[in-house]
């Protein structure tokens, strides 16, 4: 186990390279400026649920409350369905979306588990057992290369 400590003063000179690396992380949407722009109204909607009176209005008629916001129909459907992975794709950010699942009375970890391939009891057990390992979860490119190597080895046999 080593930490990539980088190089002194090796600040990213190329913003395109800097951002492109983020897309190589499996199962992760880094909250970039592009996502922040795309999801602005989704996140501001979620933020509005911090106020008790807004929560009540939302709960009384979710659809009508959503119609007050400049949000696409697709995003409204994802919000109604509490489809958090789709909302992340649409530029939602988890700290904002957490206002929605808090309004639903869902504990943070349980809401997080809905974005994974695990059920809530399975997810909770994984955390108690030390969490998800970074092994095989660092890089999409690395995973593809490893899979290709494994296939090559398979052919040789």
């Amino acid at each position, binding site marked *: 186990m080593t*930490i990539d400590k980088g190089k002194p003063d090796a600040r*990213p000179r190329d913003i395109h390279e800097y951002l492109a690396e983020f897309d190589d992380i499996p*199962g992760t949407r880094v909250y970039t400026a592009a996502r922040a722009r795309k999801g602005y109204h989704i996140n501001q909607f979620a933020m509005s649920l*911090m106020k008790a009176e807004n929560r009540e209005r939302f709960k009384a008629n979710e659809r009508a409350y959503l119609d007050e916001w400049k949000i696409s129909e697709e995003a409204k459907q994802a919000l109604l369905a509490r489809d958090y992975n789709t909302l992340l794709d649409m530029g939602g950010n988890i700290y904002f979306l957490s*206002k929605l699942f808090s309004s639903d009375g869902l504990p943070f*970890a349980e809401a997080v588990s809905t974005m994974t391939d695990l059920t809530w009891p399975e*997810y909770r057990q994984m*955390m108690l057992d*030390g*969490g998800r390992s970074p092994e095989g979860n660092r890089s999409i490119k690395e995973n593809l290369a490893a899979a290709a190597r494994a296939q090559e080895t398979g052919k040789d046999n």
Partner: protein
Amino acid sequence: MARITAGVGSSHVPLLGVAVDQGKSNDDYFGPIFAGYEWTRQWEKEQKPDVIILVYNDHASAFDMKIVPTFAIGCGESYKPADEGWGPRQVPDVEGHPDLAWHIAQSLILDEFDMTIINEMDVDHGLTVPLSMMFGQPEQWPAKVIPLAVNVVTYPVPSGNRCWALGEAIKRAVESFPEDLNVQIWGTGGMSHQLQGKRAGLLNRAWDNKFLDLLIGETDEARWIPHIEYLRETGSEGIEMVMWLIMRGALGDKTRMLHRHYHIPCSNTAIGHIVLEPVEEETVPA
């Protein structure tokens, strides 16, 4: 003159606040986490800091997407606990130290750190949970607090190096404040955790502990760790650890470790805690 006498690093998981507020800090789940803070609670009683510069991030509580300051310093008289969607925590209001805060803000800006000034805001679990962990449940917090909020949510967040350098500038600013004050700086957040997507639940005990190692002694290598390394190895929210580098930078060239604690898990997160003191090299008389 005012002096930074110690640095504290700590996770600020909201569930820890819930555990304190609901009296669960001794149960089977939380007991081992809180046991690792017992040393620090005793030590803080002896240290009696006057002021804590508390580096944290706001979690869509005081700030929404309308304004995203990279570095913001609280110069107000006091701050109320934020309502994060289930009513504010029943903890004391946080008292500021406007004299020192404004002095630091002005000094930092002259030192080319273009700070955002905050006069009024509510403070969320990112700030109140560390206070609960270090001070328990007092009638009022035993120290004044200067909140220093860092954007670690919307990318690009500040680099590790910039955070370290900000810490160095904070040290200079504090030391030019004429009043004798015992000042601590706390870096909060982390350690490894990912709260989103299919990879949620990622934890990295080995990496986190190496990071703790890098805060001790003379090394300043941690300042160069690139963002992508935090993201790959410690989950999307592990990036909060750059805030610990502000704390470390403010302790000068060399530190000594007084206490250290690590526990997995708390909710989705790895709990890390460290107490450091600056080691001033003795100058040899000519």
